[in-house]
């Protein structure tokens, strides 16, 4: 028996209103589909807004030797060849058009002397490749997409959380959710669903991610029967703030290093000379993060357990112009003037390379009618993402997902939605109100974060990961007993109780995959297996649901065609 709910119907339902979700919605609208966009926050507040450095696209405006081939090569090498080669190729080929399109919709980028879009250097990119607007590129991008979508006319369901995908005879039929404002239920009937819900960083305490990053989309897909892939690869951004405690984890853009910032330990040594003498500070994120971690661990860290990042050798006016929000962030939150002295930085959980397994061309998951793009999807970045490749990922594969979702919606007819599934979803959602007052969702969340930080962090061992499983089992039992106070009216404790399930699901997927991969590659570093293993270079970890259990399988890495192999492989 279901309680009352409202019903909305769309050809394409997009979950998530960051760069990927909005770009998917725009494309589906352009193909004539009726589109609904659901987001947990207000429109325009999604995580994309925090992206600072820029969009990687081989436009060759600054370094004329650039082209899709070098971008493809950098992306594959950065991901240590675990990337889906076809996604990496499409991404490198299509990113410049996606940037030009953004400009035609009103985005304004910084310019070269000749009036073209300016591009800056970034870690792991051979050429100056990142199109940017100071250090607030994500804001410019999200406003542009938001306005474009409003103009084309999508329906936006703001502050609405989807808790379950509905299926009908092995096919997607819609989604179930609730309004955060009043707790009322809503059912979406849809022929296609695009998941663009971003990442999972809130399972760690030191993170650059906002509260929204709880792995909802991956969990929805997993529960509905779709496969997850490469979940062991969690990127720790090398430079988060470490002091004061309130801002710990807050991102310090890689653009600081792109603009010439230098990393030093407390002895004043430029330690990247040791770890990557060629690329120094502009090495890939996995390498820089591990280097800082190692310096601190070996006793050469700063007062608050980080490294110094210094840009004060550049003229103060230049720093303020190119890195305005960093200047303000440190001035206001840490009493540090970055034009005069160094920042203290350390690794912060930032991004997950793994996610929903998708087809390169269509972004369709292994469940027909379910698509995924952006951070929620796996494949493009392999075992480590290069800075700047995320915003371009959102545009390239957001568009492809929207296109394919609209086409899929044209081919299929509407099915009904299952009352039984809706009743079950309602029951699950309301359980915390009837649980005896035994467990605070906030306490469970804090304990989960401790487990993930200490046992499933930058460096991992079999012993720690096994311990993590035992802890996660206990946390799952506690989460099931989570109870909430108050009403269904805008109740954050209740919202968190639901999101805990997502965080626990993705945390288990990360730990399961990390334990299996007995090698170190990209962002996955095993102390007990410190080297590459050529066998693991050929395998992905796949996570899939079997009944109520989470199972791991392996799947071969798709072989690159010979010409691309020539292009990508080290000389």
């Amino acid at each position, binding site marked *: 028996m279901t309680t009352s709910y409202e019903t909305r119907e769309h050809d394409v339902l997009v979950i998530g209103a960051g760069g990927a979700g909005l770009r998917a919605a725009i494309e589906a609208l352009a193909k004539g589909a009726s589109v609904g966009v659901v987001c947990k926050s207000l429109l325009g507040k999604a995580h994309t807004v925090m992206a600072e450095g820029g969009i990687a696209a081989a436009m060759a405006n600054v370094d004329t030797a650039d082209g899709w081939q070098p971008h493809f090569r950098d992306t594959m090498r950065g991901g240590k060849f675990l990337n889906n080669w076809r996604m990496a190729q499409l991404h490198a080929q299509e990113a410049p058009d996606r940037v030009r399109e953004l400009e035609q919709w009103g985005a*304004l980028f*910084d310019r070269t002397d000749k009036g073209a879009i300016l591009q800056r250097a970034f870690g792991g990119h051979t050429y100056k490749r990142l199109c940017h607007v100071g250090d607030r590129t994500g804001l410019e991008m999200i406003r542009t997409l938001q306005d474009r979508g409003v103009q084309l006319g999508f329906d936006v369901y703001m502050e609405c959380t989807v808790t379950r995908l509905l299926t009908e005879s092995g096919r997607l039929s819609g989604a179930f959710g609730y309004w955060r404002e009043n707790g009322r239920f809503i059912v979406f009937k849809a022929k296609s669903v695009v998941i663009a819900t971003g990442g999972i960083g809130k399972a760690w305490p030191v993170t650059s991610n906002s509260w929204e990053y709880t792995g909802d989309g991956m969990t929805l897909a997993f529960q509905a029967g779709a496969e997850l892939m490469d979940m062991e690869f969690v990127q720790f951004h090398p430079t988060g703030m470490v002091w*004061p*405690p309130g*801002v710990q984890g807050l991102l310090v853009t890689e653009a600081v290093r792109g603009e010439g910032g230098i990393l030093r330990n407390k002895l004043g040594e430029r330690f990247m000379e040791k770890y990557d003498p060629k690329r120094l500070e502009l090495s890939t994120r996995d390498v820089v993060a591990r280097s800082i971690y190692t310096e601190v661990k070996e006793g050469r860290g700063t007062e608050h357990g980080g490294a110094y990042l210094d840009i004060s050798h550049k003229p103060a006016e230049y720093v303020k112009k190119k890195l305005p929000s960093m200047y303000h*962030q440190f001035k206001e939150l*840490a009493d540090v003037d970055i034009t005069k002295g160094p920042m203290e930085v350390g690794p912060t959980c930032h991004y997950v390379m793994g996610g929903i397994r998708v087809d390169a061309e269509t972004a369709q998951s292994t469940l027909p009618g379910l698509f995924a793009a952006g951070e929620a999807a796996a494949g493009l970045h392999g075992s480590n993402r290069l800075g700047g490749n995320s915003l371009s990922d959102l545009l390239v594969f957001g568009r492809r997902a929207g296109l394919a979702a609209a086409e899929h919606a044209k081919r299929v007819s509407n099915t009904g939605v299952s009352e039984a599934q809706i009743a079950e979803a309602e029951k699950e959602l309301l359980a915390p109100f009837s649980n005896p007052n035994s467990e605070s969702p906030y306490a469970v969340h804090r304990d989960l974060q401790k487990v993930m930080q200490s046992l499933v962090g930058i460096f991992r061992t079999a012993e720690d990961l096994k311990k993590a499983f035992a802890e996660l089992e206990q946390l799952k039992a506690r989460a099931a007993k989570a109870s909430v106070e108050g009403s269904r009216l*805008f109740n954050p404790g209740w919202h968190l109780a639901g999101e805990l399930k997502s965080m626990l699901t993705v945390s288990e997927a990360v730990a399961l995959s990390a334990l299996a991969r007995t090698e170190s590659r990209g962002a996955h570093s095993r102390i007990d297996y410190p080297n590459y293993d050529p066998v693991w270079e050929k395998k992905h970890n796949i996570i899939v649901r079997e009944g109520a259990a989470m199972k791991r399988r392996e799947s071969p890495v798709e072989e690159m065609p010979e010409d691309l192999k020539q292009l990508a492989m080290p000389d």
Partner: protein
Amino acid sequence: MPDATLRVSRGDGAAGGQTVDYTVPVAPGMVVLDALHYIQGHLAPDLAVRWNCKAGKCGSCSAEVNGRPRLTCKTRMDDLPKDQPITVMPMKSFPRIKDLVTDVSWNYTVNKKIPAFRPLQDTDWKISQIDVDRVQEFRKCIECFLCQDVCHVIREHDAKAGFGGPRFFVRVAGLELHPLDALNRVGLLKDDLGIGLCNITKCCTEVCPEEIHITDNAIIPLKERVVDQFYDPLTMLFRKIRGR
């Protein structure tokens, strides 16, 4: 460090509100949003607060702290007087949903009235950095709606119908000054967004966390455009003669 007392407005739209005092341990560098999170996590799990980035980039966590509209993520506890409770109230100009969360949907309705960018025909997309710099200021708005909250037209007179408010004058300025934009939104400013109602008290500029010179750089030049287009005596005479 001593504990702080936060006096937080609780209640929902229907039931009205009252303030409740909470004692919160203070850590170095702590901001008001941290204190609100502490309350959620330990004292009042259903305390409704909007937030996202906690880095001053998304504009979600607006509230009135000790009577002043601010982003709670950028308001440091050690900048506030220690000998009295810190009051945290929701933005006054918008209907309260619950606790510190208000219904800001009116802003999204206004936004829909503004035509998006339309490029000049046959442009080669070459733009000089000077032209980008000029318009940057308006485009860094994070839509925290604090300017809307303090605007007299909205706060004291609740004249939301037929008015846009500082946020949307800034948005129009960002479009009108885009070097390649082909549209003219001056009529819209005058009629639908009611820019004439603004009497330039600069309250909006004072509270802007992005330090946008809303009044001087956006509103006044836009008002001038309205005057030039609609109230210039010569143009008016010309219109009369031509009968339109």
